[in-house]
C-alpha cells in the first residue's frame, strides 16, 4: 500500500531511499566503494544515486577494501560523513585492520580530537546460492571490537530508520544488511527521513513462555518457528548487535524464564554465546532452563549445494523452542 506519505518498499529499496534522503539533506555524506556508481552496486543498493548526486559524491573506488575503509577514516576525521560499501561480508577481511586498529580507536586514541563518523554498509549472510565468501556472518568479530557499533535491520522500515541513525551517529557503525531478505517482502516505509535509536531492540511479538532472540535474516526464520509453536513466544529482534540492548533481553527472560538465541554465524564465540552468558549472569534465578543457542555449525559455510544444511531453519529453531519448554 502506497500513500502520499509512505511507499511500499523492499529492504534494499529502503536502504537506497535512506541514502538518498541523507544525501539530499547533508552534503557531507559521500558514498564510496566498488561498483557503487553507474552500476548502482552489485545489489543495486546505490542505484540512481550517482545520477542524482554526481560522481564526486558517489565514487567508484579502486578494488581495495583496506583502501576504501582507510581513506573513509580520513574523510570522516576531516568533516565528512563517508558511507563506504564493502561488496560482501566475506571481503571485510582485508579491511579488518583499518576497522579495528584505526576506525575503532581514533576517538579514544586522541581523547576526542579526532572522530570517525562513518557508516560501513555490508551485505551479510547466507541463503542466496552465492559463491564462497559471499555468505558468511562475521558480526561477532566486529562486536568484540570496542569502539565500533554494529547494526543489522530485519525489515524495510527498520532498515531506513537505522541506516539514517547510523549515518548521523558520531561514531563508526558497521551496518550489516541481510542480503537474503533484501527483496523478500515489502512494507510501507515513510517517505520522510526518520531515525530509530541505535542500541534498542524491538519486541516483534510479545509472549510469556519463552524468549527468542534473533537479528537480520534469522528474525524471519525465528518468527516462522515461533508461529508454528504452541507456546507463547516473545520474539526479540536485536536491531543493534553492539552495543546490546541488555534491558530488553533481560526484561523478557525475567518474564519468560526461558531463552533461545538464533544466529547464522558459527556457534563458538558467536553473539548467541554472549547473550547466553549475559542472560545467565543476570537472570540466573529466573531461568527455568539453560539458554539454547541455535547457530551455524563450527564449520566453514559450505558452498551452496549444502548451505541450507548449514543455516538454522525453522526445524532447528522449533526443536530448540520445544526442548527448552520441556526442560
Amino acid at each position, binding site marked *: 500500500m502506497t500513500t502520499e506519505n509512505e511507499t511500499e518498499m523492499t529492504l534494499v529499496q529502503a536502504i537506497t531511499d535512506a541514502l538518498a534522503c541523507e544525501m539530499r539533506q547533508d552534503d557531507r555524506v559521500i558514498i564510496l566503494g566498488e561498483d557503487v556508481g553507474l552500476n548502482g552496486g552489485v545489489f543495486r543498493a546505490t542505484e540512481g544515486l550517482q545520477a542524482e548526486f554526481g560522481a564526486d559524491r558517489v565514487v567508484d573506488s579502486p578494488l581495495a577494501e583496506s*583502501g576504501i575503509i582507510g581513506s573513509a577514516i580520513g574523510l570522516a576525521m576531516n568533516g565528512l560523513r563517508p558511507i563506504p560499501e564493502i561488496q560482501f561480508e566475506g571481503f571485510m577481511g582485508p579491511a579488518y585492520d583499518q576497522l579495528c586498529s584505526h576506525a575503532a580507536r581514533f576517538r579514544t586514541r586522541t581523547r576526542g580530537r579526532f572522530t570517525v563518523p562513518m557508516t560501513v554498509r555490508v551485505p551479510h549472510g547466507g541463503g542466496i546460492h552465492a559463491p564462497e565468501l559471499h555468505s558468511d556472518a562475521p558480526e561477532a568479530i566486529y562486536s568484540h571490537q570496542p569502539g565500533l557499533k554494529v547494526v543489522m535491520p530485519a525489515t524495510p522500515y527498520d532498515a531506513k530508520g537505522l541506516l539514517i541513525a547510523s549515518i548521523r551517529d558520531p561514531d563508526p557503525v558497521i551496518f550489516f544488511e541481510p542480503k537474503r531478505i533484501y527483496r523478500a517482502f515489502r512494507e510501507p516505509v515513510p517517505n520522510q527521513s526518520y531515525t530509530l535509536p541505535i542500541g534498542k531492540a524491538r519486541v516483534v511479538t510479545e509472549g510469556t513462555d519463552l524468549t527468542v532472540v534473533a537479528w537480520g535474516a534469522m528474525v524471519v526464520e525465528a518468527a516462522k518457528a515461533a508461529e508454528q509453536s504452541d507456546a507463547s513466544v516473545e520474539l526479540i529482534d536485536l536491531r543493534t548487535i553492539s552495543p546490546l540492548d541488555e534491558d530488553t533481553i533481560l526484561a523478557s527472560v525475567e518474564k519468560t524464564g526461558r531463552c*533461545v538465541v538464533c544466529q547464522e554465524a558459527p556457534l563458538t564465540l558467536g553473539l548467541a554465546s554472549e547473550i547466553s552468558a549475559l542472560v545467565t549472569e543476570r537472570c540466573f534465578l529466573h531461568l527455568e532452563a539453560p539458554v539454547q543457542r541455535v547457530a551455524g555449525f563450527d564449520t566453514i559455510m559450505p558452498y551452496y549445494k549444502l548451505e541450507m544444511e548449514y543455516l538454522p531453519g525453522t526445524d532447528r529453531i522449533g526443536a530448540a523452542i520445544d526442548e527448552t519448554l520441556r526442560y
Partner: protein
Amino acid sequence: MPITTAYETKIDHVSILDEHGAFDRELGEGLIPNDQLPAIMEHLVFCRLLDETAFKLQRSGRMGTYPQNTGQEMPSLAAALAMEKADWLVTCYRENTGLFWHGLPPECILLHWMGDERGNHIPAGVNATPIAIPIGTQMLHAAGLAWAEKVKKTGAIAVTFFGDGATSEGDFHEAANFAASLKLPVVFCCQNNGWAISVPSSVQSAGETFAQRGLSYGMPCVRADGNDLFAMTKVMKDAVARARSGDGPTFIEAVTYRLRDHTTADDARRYRDDAELATWEARDPLPRLKRWMEEKGLWDATQHEKVTKAGEARVAEIISNAEDISPPDRTEFFDHMYAELPASLIRQRDTKRTTSLGQFPEDLV
C-alpha cells in the same frame, strides 16, 4: 651534480599476430610447433563451447553464478603451453583454457560453480589451485608454492593470474614484493581486460600501463597483446625460463577484453558502450588464430566443423558428469574441517544441532 638520474627504464609491448592478421616471422616462427596448433585450436573451440554452455546452464537454473572466459582464452593457455607438468598454475576464474591444458578436468570448474566443493578437489598430480574467490589473494599462495619449490630445489615454478582490478589490492603488492625480494620462481600475469565488474581499468590505476605495476619491485616487466597466442607464448616462455633459471619473477600485462558480462549476475550493458564492445569483438583471439591457421593451411572448415561437433559432445558429457554426481552427504561439510575432528564438531555433525538439549537429550529433565 645536483640533478642526476637515479633510475631509468622502458617497458616493451609485444605483438606477433596482430588483429589485422599480420604475423611477425622473426619472433613468431617456430614459437609454437605447427603440429601442435590443431590440438590447440581444438582445445580453444572446446573451451569456448563449454563457456557459452555454462552461461546457458546458469540461465536455466542449473548452475550458480558463472564468470565467462570468452575473449580471454590466450593468456592462460600460453602459460600452460610454456609450463611443465610439475609447475603450479595459480589462477583467478578466467583461466579455463590454461587450467584444462595443464590437466584440470573441466568437471572441476563446473562443480565449483554448481556450488560443490568437490570441484576443488584437484586430482593428485595436477598442480593447480582452485578458483580464487577473494580478489587479489591467490598471488601470495603462488609465491609460497614457488618458494617451497625453491627450498626443495625441484626447478618447478609457479605462474599466477589475476585481473586489472586485483592489482589494486594490497595483497598483490605484497606478493610481488615477496617474490622479487626473495627471488622466487614466479610469473605474475595480469589479465587487463579493461574492467573490474563495472569499474574501468582507468580507475584501478592512473598509470599508462598495468605492466608498470611491476617496476616497484625491480622485476622485469612486459606488456603483450593478450589476444595474440604467439605474443603471449613468447613472453610466457621468457618469463618461465627466467623463473626456472633462478633469476626471479617477471610481471606480464596481457591486454585483453572480457567479451561477455562480468558474471551471469552482471549486465555489462549498464556500463559499457556498444562501440567499445564492437572494437574488441573484432579483436576476438579465436577467429584471429583460426584465420591465420587457415591461411597457413593448418586448419580448414571441415576440421572446424568436426572439432565443433566433438566439442559439443564433450561439453554435453562433461555437463552430465557434473550434474550426475551424487548429491553431497548432508554432513559432508564437516568432514574436512580438520585432519581429526574435535569432539564438539563430531557431536554437531552427528546431531545436526548446536543446542545442548538437542545434542544431549538426557539433559531434558
